[in-house]
């Protein structure tokens, strides 16, 4: 709760600084604020506090995920200056919007009431709509924003209607109450509740960008400013999946029969479509969009295999996904700055001049592909095992085949970097702490890969 407040305040301060045309203090303020928020968030660990009669629940689950989200945002902000190097103006609006989006995502992970879920989602989405279009004079950016907006608002329409139906059926929007209601009449579910649940599920599926509601993702990811894409692909996705997980686990765990098959089909479709479509991408940015879709599919497995362990697994997975993706995007930003293209060729011979970036990128790719001993493998491994533990072997087999396919396109940048000759001559220069971050991320991916147990058993 304090985290949310802090961040909101920081956002307002940022806006204020922008208003008085001060560029210098902006980022420091953000850094400090986020770090503060991170710490405040951790306060109250193991004592699940409820705010505003169960509107907002700060239990370990939400705290852990919020930690991840805040940390990710911090990383994004660290990469910001390099990305916005050419821009003169303070960019307070963009920073503030990112912060507000973060607030939305924090609410999503911790909602105790469908109302808060909706509010959180909308806070996140609305901010993202604007951010997606924040390159005002870039038609791609505009188009991305428009597409995102249209599909997004459409989807939230369904979500909302679903919530309404749930409310109608159960008579409450409180997760706990709904759970009670569901337990009471497991025997004969009113059709209204089923429909409501499905609509909500669909809405969430859209937000995490899983098939068959993934179509917006590639276009939006490609069109939006890369930094924003990074934010969307990490914070947006993780928050959505966490919210989805929370919803399902806290209210509808007992009625798997209604939604399990549907979600399984979603997951299978997502994994296959995501990986196969990424297979042929030459545009790396877009490739990451598809890889993001694929990973959404994997995360859905965690939702499907609902048991206590799964929360931890999901946490680990989202961490691995976030770190790897953010590292990859960071390098991508660099390369883009240098070569002006997102094509895979841009990576040719990167290892020659920028060994450190290349190394980080390699680690990220391998981690995403799930090659041991990196965190990506640990995450997948735990995910699959917990899924199998509850008899989802076919699903897991599909997932394995998916990641088999994924190896191919994840390895392509690596090959380009190491085995192809560089096109440019000079090394791409990047600020020193940028380098530090990238290296840190790479190290993290290895370390977490070595001690995944910590996080799996965290919540």
């Amino acid at each position, binding site marked *: 709760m304090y985290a949310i407040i802090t961040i909101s305040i920081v956002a307002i301060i940022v806006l204020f600084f922008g208003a008085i045309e001060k560029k210098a203090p902006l980022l420091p303020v953000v850094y400090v604020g986020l770090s503060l928020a991170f710490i405040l968030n951790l306060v109250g660990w193991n004592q699940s506090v409820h705010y505003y009669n169960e509107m907002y629940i700060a239990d370990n689950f939400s705290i852990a995920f919020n930690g991840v989200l805040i940390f990710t945002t911090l990383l994004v902000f660290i990469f910001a200056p390099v990305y916005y190097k050419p821009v003169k103006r303070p960019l307070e609006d963009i920073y503030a919007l990112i912060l507000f989006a973060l607030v939305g995502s924090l609410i999503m992970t911790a909602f105790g009431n469908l*109302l808060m879920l*909706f*509010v959180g989602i*909308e806070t996140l989405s*609305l901010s993202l*709509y*604007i951010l997606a*279009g924040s390159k*005002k*004079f870039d*038609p*791609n950016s*505009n*188009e*991305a*924003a*428009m*597409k995102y*907006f*249209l599909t997004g*608002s*459409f989807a939230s*329409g*369904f979500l*909302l*209607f679903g*919530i*309404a*139906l749930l*409310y*109608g059926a159960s*008579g*409450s*929007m409180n997760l706990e109450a709904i759970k009670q209601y569901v337990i009471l009449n497991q025997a004969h579910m009113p059709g*209204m509740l089923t429909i409501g649940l499905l609509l909500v599920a669909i809405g969430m599926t859209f937000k995490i960008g899983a098939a068959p509601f993934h179509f917006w993702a*590639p*276009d939006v990811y*490609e*069109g939006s400013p890369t930094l924003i894409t990074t934010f969307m692909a990490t914070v947006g996705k993780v928050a959505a999946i966490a919210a989805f997980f929370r919803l399902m686990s806290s209210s509808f765990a007992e009625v798997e029969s209604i939604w399990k098959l549907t979600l399984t089909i979603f997951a299978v479709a997502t994994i296959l479509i995501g990986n196969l479509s990424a297979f042929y991408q030459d545009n790396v940015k877009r490739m990451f969009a598809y890889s993001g879709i694929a990973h959404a599919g994997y995360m859905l497995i965690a939702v499907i295999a609902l048991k206590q362990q799964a929360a931890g697994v999901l946490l680990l997975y989202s961490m691995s996904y976030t770190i790897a993706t953010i590292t990859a995007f960071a390098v991508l930003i660099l390369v883009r700055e240098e070569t002006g293209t997102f094509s895979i060729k841009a990576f040719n011979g990167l290892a020659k001049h920028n060994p450190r970036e290349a190394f980080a990128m390699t680690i990220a790719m391998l981690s995403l592909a799930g090659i041991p001993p990196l965190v990506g493998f640990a995450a997948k491994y735990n995910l699959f095992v917990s899924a199998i533990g509850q008899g989802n072997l076919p699903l897991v087999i599909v997932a394995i085949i998916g990641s088999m396919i994924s190896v191919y396109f994840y390895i392509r940048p690596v090959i380009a970097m190491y085995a192809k000759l560089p096109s440019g001559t000079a090394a791409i220069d990047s600020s020193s702490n940028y380098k530090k971050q990238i290296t840190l991320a790479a190290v993290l991916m290895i370390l977490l890969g070595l001690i995944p147990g910590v996080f799996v058993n965290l919540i």
Partner: protein
Amino acid sequence: MGTTIAQIQTIPLQYYILFCSALFSIGVIGVLAKRNALVIFMSVELMLNSANLLLTAFSAYRNDPAGQIFVFFIMVVAAAEVAIGLALLVVVYRSTKTIDINALNRLKW
């Protein structure tokens, strides 16, 4: 207040549900059928408002204010949404000189 609820309850709940569903479907169809962004916004609004109506109806029938409170939130969000939507529309129009959504086809494959 009580009388209003009583009057509301004279109409069976199913009617509200059906009506709202119909309204919602109209919204959906509008979104699908139209290629003009502006109209699509309006259809989306229709969808949201159908949900509002549904919530209100439920809350009225259950004597539970939560639903109606939610409606206010939704209205706020909807307003914000429209604002953003129109803003984007303007931007897009500036670049493509049209508000036909089929004109948005730079990003694909």
